[in-house]
């Protein structure tokens, strides 16, 4: 066995290991960039809130300036978030070729390669621990609780849900109590 051949197998074995570690580091770094926002959500489909360990929900964006958020493929609409992270004051729908509504604090685009595809601005899903899943489902259906999803918008504008919390809906004027 020549010296060259002795090196080839260790290198070939090291390459996948090094590559996977680099992918991990890169994913870790990417998960820390971007801005985080709190968005109210509602249950997406009462018959199928849980698919596996995922909770499906629908974003309840505060006061969209212009109509509904389109969710069909090819529209390439994005969402202008106005507010101070993590609080969203209002959103506006940005359509290609239309004039911008002014300053945006963050712009969210549907990630065509997520499970939701072009519906990414309207609905999403989050992986939850199995033991909490039933509780989450019950609270999403319960009108006394408001679901809040913490999302991260990365530099590409893609949304990644980070966590799901609930706060009790209280009559107008009262102080909101943060729960769980």
């Amino acid at each position: 066995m020549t010296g060259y051949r002795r090196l080839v197998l260790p290198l070939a074995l090291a390459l996948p290991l090094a590559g996977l570690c680099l992918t991990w580091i890169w994913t870790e770094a990417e998960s820390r960039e971007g801005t985080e926002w709190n968005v109210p959500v509602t249950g997406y489909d009462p018959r199928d809130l849980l698919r596996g360990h995922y909770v499906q929900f629908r974003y309840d964006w505060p006061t969209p300036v212009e109509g509904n958020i389109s969710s069909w493929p090819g529209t390439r609409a994005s969402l202008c978030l106005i507010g101070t992270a993590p609080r969203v004051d209002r959103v506006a729908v940005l359509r290609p070729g239309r004039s911008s509504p002014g300053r945006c604090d963050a712009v969210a685009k549907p990630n065509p390669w997520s499970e939701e595809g072009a519906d990414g601005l309207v609905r999403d899903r989050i992986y939850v621990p199995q033991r909490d899943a039933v509780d989450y489902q019950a609270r999403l259906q319960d009108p006394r609780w408001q679901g809040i999803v913490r999302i991260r918008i990365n530099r590409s504008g893609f949304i990644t849900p980070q966590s799901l919390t609930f706060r009790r809906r209280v009559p107008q004027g009262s102080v909101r109590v943060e729960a769980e």
Partner: protein
Amino acid sequence: MSDRKINHWVNAGLIDSDTAERLRAYEADQSRPLGLWSLIGLGTLAIGLGIISLVAANWDAIPGTVRLAVHILTIAAISAAIFVLRPHNGFLGLYLKDVLLFILAILGATFFGHLGQVYQTSSPIWQPMAIWLVLFSPLLLLAGRGWLISLLWVVALLGTAIAHWGWLAEQGDAPPSLYIALVTSIPLVALLSALACRGNSSREPFWTQIGQFALASFVAGVSLKLIADGVSNGNPFGAQADAGKIAIMQLVIWAAAASAAYRLDRSATGTSITAILAAAACANFLGSIGPFTEPLAGAILFMAFWAAIGWSAIYSGWRNVFQVVVAIIALRLIALSLELASNLLNSGLGLIVAGVITIGISVVAYRFSRAFAPARSATADPVEPDGEP
């Protein structure tokens, strides 16, 4: 081998008692403690399943970073085991190394999914597949020995190409003609690599298998395309694609590949592969530009392509391939008879006629195959039709 069978042969006068003694001695020497091995295998399986259930039951309780670290450490441990087994070329060295390589490759692929679960990310499937291909191809191609690894690699290569094509097609705009011509030629990259590496490698059967899988998938792809050409006026590559332009590019690329195959392998096998590639290039080109939407013309083109494969099989003595060719041409003939007289299945008499045609073609094909199939080679493994020098 049981003694009963040997006694049976001695009694029938097929072998003498000396031969029987030598057979018994040889079989006793070659015998493996299969019972013991299966129990060890069963035990290992039980331990493995137990570990998987324990991990699965506590999945949420284990922090993501810990899970990913264990995943990476398992990959590292298996890599180390493959390295340690490197000088062993007995049973352990050859078979265990291949199984470990396979497990390593699968663990590597699942790592991307695991990352996505921990970091709540998602990406088009071709991205992790392409990264996996870049990271694992050198290892698999350098150390693989059996069909497990050769098949895995060819499937991964073609799967990545198909996933990327699907992703591009969903982007809205039609993929460029050159892209479609190149992506449909990817099996030929594997085939030519196999031909190039086969002669210089100590693992000739492994490269032969890669060549076989690549050629088989290419032939299957071309056949499907020829069938799609005949089904309707629709374009098999999507309504917006320029079928004629793609066909011209494929003609050029596949002809170049045929010429390269001939240069890489001057043996009968190389000539046969060259003939198949040239036939594919011509049939595909004619199918795209010609008026082959008529059932008869489409079927003739399809059968001409497969007849070229049949010729190659006779030329190189690929007995099994020849039998497959005869079967496929027979099936195409049966399908053609139903296409031409589509009302056959509507009446009782028509069904009888269709049945007679089917039986007739089958019997003729069977007799043809028996009469003209290349003789079974004494040395070549019957499941490896491409195994000729």
